[in-house]
């Protein structure tokens, strides 16, 4: 009985120490909600765009998210965080969208919005330009690289897009564009996201396919 208790306590000690000290976990922050990104993003204004949601593990899964942090005044950077299953699954449909924004007054907003929403409509960064009787947002020359970082491609938000986004933000609802251009199914996201979501080799290998391929290769 004493031996079993000692073995159990040793296992518990091993798991605790692994959790606290394991080199794999030391450098990764853990977030429960997008709001927890404020622990990592210290400078403002900044916006965190979800690039990837990943999981690891056979029996017990660990969930990770990759964000691209965009600042107004410095180059972007990419971070990987550990997260909860619920947040990972819930936010996977908001791929390529901004899940965390902090403005110059340090106000934080975590409603999923199209990338670049934080800087759109702010006269510090650009202005509205009239083209074919529609007002489009254009960034100043200094910030000309921002649309590339946002993954906009040829897209420029118009006034209607901006007002609709404001409306959604006030109502606390996510906004993925007038024609759902952004998000996991969005046309712009799937085309211009820097690291396009694709299924890994691990996902593509299916048990049934292995047998099919085996018979195809050997008996056809």
């Amino acid at each position, binding site marked *: 009985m004493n031996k079993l208790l000692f073995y159990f306590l*040793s296992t518990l000690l*091993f798991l605790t120490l692994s959790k606290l*000290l394991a080199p794999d976990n030391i450098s990764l922050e853990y977030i429960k909600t997008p709001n927890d990104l404020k622990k990592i993003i210290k400078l403002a204004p900044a916006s965190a765009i979800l690039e990837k*949601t*990943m999981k690891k593990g056979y029996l017990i899964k660990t969930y990770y998210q990759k964000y691209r942090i965009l600042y107004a005044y410095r180059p972007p950077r990419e971070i990987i965080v550990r997260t909860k299953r619920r947040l990972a699954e819930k936010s*996977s449909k908001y791929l390529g969208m901004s899940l965390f924004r902090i403005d110059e007054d340090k106000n934080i907003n975590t409603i999923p919005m199209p990338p670049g929403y934080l800087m759109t409509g702010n006269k510090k960064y650009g202005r509205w330009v009239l083209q074919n009787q529609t007002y489009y947002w254009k960034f100043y020359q200094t910030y000309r690289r921002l649309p590339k970082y946002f993954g906009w491609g040829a897209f420029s938000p118009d006034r209607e897009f901006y007002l609709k986004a404001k409306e959604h933000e006030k109502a606390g609802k996510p906004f993925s564009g007038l024609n759902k251009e952004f998000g996991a199914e969005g046309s712009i996201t799937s085309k211009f996201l820097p690291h396009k979501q694709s299924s*890994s080799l*691990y996902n593509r290998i299916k048990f049934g396919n292995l047998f099919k391929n085996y018979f195809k290769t050997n008996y056809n």
Partner: protein
Amino acid sequence: MEEVLDRFLIRIIFAIFVCLILFLYRYLHFVIYPKGVKQISTPFNLMSNLPNSLHYLSRILGMVILFSFVEFNRFFTLEMSLIHLFLLAIVLMISYLISIHLMEMIVLYKFNYKDEILKNQNLSYSLIIFSLNISVAFLLKTVMLKSNDSLIIFITLWLYVMTLLGLAGKLFIYYSKFQFNRAISQKNFGVAFSFLFYILGNTYILVKAFDQPQIEKYSYMLRIFFKCFSSCLFIPFFIFFIKFIFSLRIKKNELNQLLIDPNKSVNFGVAEGLIFLISAYITSWIVYNINLSGLFSIL
């Protein structure tokens, strides 16, 4: 023909060089290990004392094992290479002799060379020394390979591996049914065989633990610690199930005769040690050969 002769001559030069190193080792052995002065001051009679021969030859074997990893490539001149090998040999010899001295102090702190080998001719004691010498040689060889020619990294890893091996040696009393010190003083072979296999199993696990890619020292040493810790958890598990699956049993009344009946004690010691060695090998497969990192799937 000239090239063949040249290569042959270089090999002869290296053979002479190795002999010189071994000659140096003989005297360095005396400086660091003064207790063994008789082993070198007079011609060593191999037939007079078997434990002494085992003790002495195992140290030579250990040194040769340790030296066997050193590679020579003809990138530099022959003189440069010989100087490099000489310095390396000095570091290896000193660290090896200090290591075995330390291990004897940790594991066999109650015994000394003079009493056990020269007076009592205790073969059990010398078998334990033999196992420690071989283990230390294999571990130092791994540490040397992992230290990338850096003396600081080598010293750090060397101290680390000595701590782990010392700990493993000390934990033998919790694994074995033998009363370690009492059994050695009674020249019990069982305890020697049990310890021999036990320490070889531990050495195998430690060699595997150190033999992983190292990028950053802190994370490398932490990884070694966790690998060894998880091995410690799996070994008892396998010991239990190997005994259970193969129905390996010992009668309780036979267990009481371990220190009385020499045949039974050898029988038990070999079985106990081999079960540990088998468990250590399976554990190493579980802990080191199953790679669970790097498989990400995208949601």
